[in-house]
């Protein structure tokens, strides 16, 4: 068996084990199930790593059933293994592995359902990252969504879980119908579902109303999953209630896959016809990214429920990734890719820390727990390190990703992007540091007595432990080390640039898929590595300063405090918008589609 026959296995292996678990898992003892799931996920990690390594040499295509295209007409369904898809599949597998190891002491009465759903989720994400077919993309999208809805509602005794899962399911289903209508329209125009063939059919033609409509529908549908403003409302509801290892996957890789799908479809299918409007699209995406980044960061800093805090930080970071991708240059996309990897690891580690706190105290409310985390030992250190990493402190990978994007934007004449990055990463990192200081050091003083969060949340373990057990700490440490590795591995930046340049070349993709000619090797843009360490250090310092400011704001002079209170009406307006009512969320989705559609229509008519 050569490596060229491996591509379907990251999907087949977890699905098969999930099916076996559902069929016979009830009779297996708990530890056997755990060992089985961990082994399976390790196998998937290795498979994805192999595929990634092979695709770094040259991307390749796998045709199911050997149905190769004839004369440029696609007959079958393909997986395209390129470094971007491979890296995302590997990220998903690593995060699932961390989640499973962490769950060793977790959920006493889970049975086979939870691991089976997690494995289904993993297989769907891997397929989503690797597929080269539009409808396949939709099917994997739905599969991962359904697994995610069910996982969100794991704690079925809690109303909040049920409502969070319901809102999540309804908004994401509306998103997937938007995608499906878009796919149907583009199939009606081109008669093709294969991304490369759709791209070849649209190549060089002016975009008419139908193509624009299809693009708007597909992009906004996937943006619902990517939690970009104004499609983001479901995210915080789902994150607050989902079990911790599931949150790791949601924040670390699932929403990023939404953005990946937008970009993949754009660069393979629509770039040939929409490239003339690149400048206009860039402005639109910059605006959407900036809005997401700022809104997420502000709401993150205003949170005291740890999981919701981390959820809003994810929205902010999705905005930053979008800004990177919207540069439409290899450097911008490479920066976003590196940032996604590092952020996935960091955010995963932080969520796992929050989970340890939840299990120990039955709550993740920062004010209620003030000072009570002193005895958690290493968790303190890891959580604070995660906060610094989130703010982009060098040498974590978040820093190099950010630096690449800032560099790319500045070269396009958008120097203001650096300011957004500085402010948003300082706010999100600062929120985590503030929470760490108040939880573990007991700093700060409760000014705001009104509590929205429930008094007591269901713990996910029954065991009382004084110190966090090693199987829970080890994955956190491993994830943070991986984030460090992303930043310290010098070859990574150049590989990312090369991968991004290949990702953004529709002609090369089409020749790879349609004529299976090995495409010309993309030469890496030879530029010196960016000097972003200063900005990274600045945002880490800013995060620490903001955290201290928030903790000791009661000691500030009266005049300054009044100044701070001026922002309160705005903040409560923002909170009111996040109403928790799914009907409102759908209104925002419709409004978002309308704005995006209007903007693209104006672009197309102006030529």
């Amino acid at each position: 068996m050569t490596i060229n026959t491996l591509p379907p296995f990251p999907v087949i292996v977890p699905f098969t084990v999930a099916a076996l678990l559902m069929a016979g898992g009830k009779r297996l003892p708990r530890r056997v199930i755990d060992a089985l799931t961990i082994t399976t996920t390790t196998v998937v990690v290795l498979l994805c790593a192999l595929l990634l390594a092979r695709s770094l040499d040259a991307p390749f295509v796998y045709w199911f059933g050997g149905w190769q295209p004839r004369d440029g007409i696609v007959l079958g369904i393909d997986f395209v293994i390129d470094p971007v898809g491979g890296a995302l599949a590997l990220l998903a597998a690593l995060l699932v592995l961390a989640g499973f190891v962490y769950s060793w002491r977790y959920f006493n009465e889970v049975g086979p359902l939870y691991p089976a759903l997690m494995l289904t989720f993993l297989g769907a994400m891997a397929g989503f990252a690797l597929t080269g077919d539009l409808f396949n993309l939709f099917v994997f999208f739905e599969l991962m969504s359904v697994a995610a809805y069910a996982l969100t509602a794991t704690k079925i005794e809690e109303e909040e879980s049920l409502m969070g899962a319901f809102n999540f399911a309804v908004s994401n289903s509306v998103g997937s119908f938007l995608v499906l209508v878009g796919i149907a329209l583009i199939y009606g125009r081109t008669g093709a579902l294969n991304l490369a063939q759709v791209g070849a059919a649209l190549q060089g033609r002016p975009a008419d109303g139908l193509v624009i409509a299809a693009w708007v529908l597909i992009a906004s549908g996937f943006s619902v999953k990517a939690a970009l403003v104004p499609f983001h409302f479901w995210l915080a509801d789902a994150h607050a209630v989902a079990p911790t290892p599931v949150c790791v996957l949601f924040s670390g890789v699932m929403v990023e896959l939404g953005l990946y799908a937008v970009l993949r479809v754009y660069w393979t299918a629509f770039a040939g016809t929409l490239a003339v409007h690149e400048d206009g699209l860039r402005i639109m995406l910059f605006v959407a990214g900036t809005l997401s980044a700022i809104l997420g960061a502000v709401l993150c800093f205003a949170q005291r429920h740890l999981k919701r805090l981390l959820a809003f930080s994810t929205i902010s970071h999705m905005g930053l990734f979008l800004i990177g991708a919207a540069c439409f240059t290899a450097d911008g996309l490479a920066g976003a890719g590196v940032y996604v990897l590092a952020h996935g690891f960091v955010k995963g580690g932080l969520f796992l820390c929050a989970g340890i706190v939840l299990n120990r105290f039955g709550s993740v409310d920062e004010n209620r727990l003030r000072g009570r985390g002193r005895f958690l030992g290493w968790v303190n250190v890891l959580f604070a390190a995660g906060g610094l990493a989130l703010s982009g402190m060098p040498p974590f990978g978040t820093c190099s990703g950010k630096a690449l994007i800032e560099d790319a934007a500045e070269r396009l004449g958008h120097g203001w992007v650096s300011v957004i990055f500085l402010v948003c990463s300082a706010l999100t990192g600062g929120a985590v540091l503030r929470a760490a200081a108040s939880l573990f050091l007991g700093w700060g003083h409760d000014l705001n007595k009104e509590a929205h969060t429930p008094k007591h949340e269901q713990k996910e373990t029954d065991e009382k432990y004084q110190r966090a057990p090693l199987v829970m700490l080890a994955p956190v440490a491993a994830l943070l080390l991986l984030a460090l590795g992303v930043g310290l591995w010098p070859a990574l930046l150049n590989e990312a640039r090369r991968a991004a340049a290949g990702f953004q070349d529709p002609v090369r993709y089409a020749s790879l898929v349609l004529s299976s000619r090995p495409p010309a090797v993309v030469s890496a843009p030879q530029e010196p590595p960016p000097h972003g360490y200063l900005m990274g250090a600045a945002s880490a310092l800013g995060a620490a300063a903001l955290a201290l400011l928030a903790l000791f704001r009661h000691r500030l002079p009266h005049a300054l405090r009044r100044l701070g209170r001026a922002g309160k009406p705005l903040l409560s307006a923002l909170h009111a918008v996040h109403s928790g009512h799914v009907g409102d969320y759908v209104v925002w989705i419709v409004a978002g589609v309308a704005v995006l559609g209007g903007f693209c229509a104006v672009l197309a008519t102006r030529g």
Partner: protein
Amino acid sequence: MIYLPYAVVAWLFLIGLYGIISSRHLIHLTVCLSVVQSSTYVLLLSIGYRRGAGAPIFADVPPGTPAVDPVVQALTLTDIVVGATVMALLLALATQIQKRRGHLDPHHLRPMRG
């Protein structure tokens, strides 16, 4: 080209969305979601439709007999399966919410806030 099916698609999609937005009952909301989804079935089938063509079954017919596009029919089937899964899950969630709270009005059921 006949525009009626596409008008039906737009109508179903929008009226379903309106139903979701204005709904006061989670079961009603779930059904509205399936109305939105029905619009995608109609869209897919009308894209593959050819006037005067038969079903895409190629046994016992001379080669070259016109048939409607089988691809979109396969897509519709997949879509129906996906829809059934989502609906089943949403209805199960609604049943659980009813058990805990005794009502299903989304205006009085909010996830965690703050």
